[in-house]
């Protein structure tokens, strides 16, 4: 019990950066696919979803971390779910207060942040084992990684599917939009494309490191 909660390692750049690249929730861990595919049909939706998820992740990570020594092991998952659901409800009200159009565009997916396994995963695997500040930094990194991933999908889909970026026309009058890109199948196509790209870069990096090691050894 005691070693589960003690965490002496300091906060370093990797605490934040692992969410952006090495453990990117979307491109590496493939978590939270439901909003990734569903609400990335435009840049605005992608940003709003990313920011909302980041807020929930940050707030619930800090609270879970603060309460980590008080929550008995047997009821920890239930406690995390209640904490996450609270912040999702708060986000839901705030988005309604900011813009009803945005709220209607995001539809049921705001409430569905509750079941985004990335958030529960962070609470269980990270926040419950570390101190609040470190959990917050890590949550911000993970949230940013998630937002960037949504943005990657959203910008490509809006660009190809509607010929606009953030609502502004990009290609001029003669561009015939690929409507399929803003429909659900487009989400899978674009996600597949990005995963291919990420994997290719990762494999190339791995090969380079290996070659460098072989060269050093030889």
């Amino acid at each position, binding site marked *: 019990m005691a070693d589960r909660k003690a965490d002496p390692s300091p906060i370093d750049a990797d605490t934040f950066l692992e969410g952006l690249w090495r453990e990117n929730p979307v491109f590496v861990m493939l978590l939270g696919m439901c909003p990734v595919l569903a609400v990335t049909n435009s840049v605005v939706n992608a940003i709003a979803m990313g920011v909302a998820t980041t807020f929930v992740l940050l707030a619930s990570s800090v609270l879970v971390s603060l309460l980590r020594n008080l929550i*008995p092991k047997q009821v920890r998952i239930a406690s995390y779910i209640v904490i996450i659901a609270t912040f999702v409800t708060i986000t839901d009200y705030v988005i309604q207060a900011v813009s009803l159009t945005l709220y209607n565009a995001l539809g049921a997916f705001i409430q569905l942040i509750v079941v985004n396994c990335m958030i529960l995963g962070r609470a269980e695997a990270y926040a419950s084992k570390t101190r609040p500040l470190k959990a917050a930094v890590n949550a911000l990194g993970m949230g940013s990684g998630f937002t960037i991933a949504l943005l990657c999908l959203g910008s490509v889909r809006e660009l190809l599917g509607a010929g606009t970026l953030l609502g502004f026309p990009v290609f001029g009058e003669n561009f015939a939009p690929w409507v399929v890109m803003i429909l659900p199948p487009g989400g899978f196509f674009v996600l597949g494309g990005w995963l291919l790209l990420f994997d290719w870069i990762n494999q190339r990096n791995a090969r380079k490191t290996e070659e460098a090691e072989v060269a050093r050894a030889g």
Partner: protein
Amino acid sequence: MTTDVQTQPSTPGTAMILTLGGIAMLAGLLVVLVYHLTMPFIEANRQAALERAVFDVLPGAATRRDLRLTEEGVVPAAQADGGRRLYAGYNADGGLVGVAIPAAGQGYQDTIRILYGYDPGCECIIGMAVLGHKETPGLGDKIVDDEDFHANFDGLQAEVAPDGDGLRHPIKTVKSGEKDDPWEIDAISGATISSRAIGKMMNQSAQALIPALKANADQLRQNDGG
């Protein structure tokens, strides 16, 4: 409350209940706080969206008058408190286009709120807009902008019964493609429950309000610029 948990590790039962109770209380407190802080803004947003929708459900309307339907008849909204909110729309020449009526009912997952336009001249519904819903994305949410579905509300018959009590023919939703009569709504295939919900709430609202509106049609036609 939660500090007890640390001192009593030997009784996990109580500890668990205390922790869960404490967390639930904290959660409730936070949600209520945020609810109270955001509610005025949410209400203002909803009102603005409703006022915009008035012009969608009354094609050709240029100006709007906020009314209430009370027991004394139709009065300007500012002069009364109770009664149902209504919005009368007038064209550029000052003629009555119709009355926009808010309605709500249970949908598949949550309350659906709509606004529909009634024209006392043709005794028919001339438009419908969905103001808020939580229907299934990709299926039930077609009620918002499915063109064929919305075509139902372009001249949907809402004639008052000869005895002035309710409608002559209740408005009802039928299966997709089975619309035979002018008071029937063709459901969207794949969104039958949501389509039925709209027909039901529109019928309930129309049965209750349209006879009174027809009786007060002269009052509605007076556009004193209020």
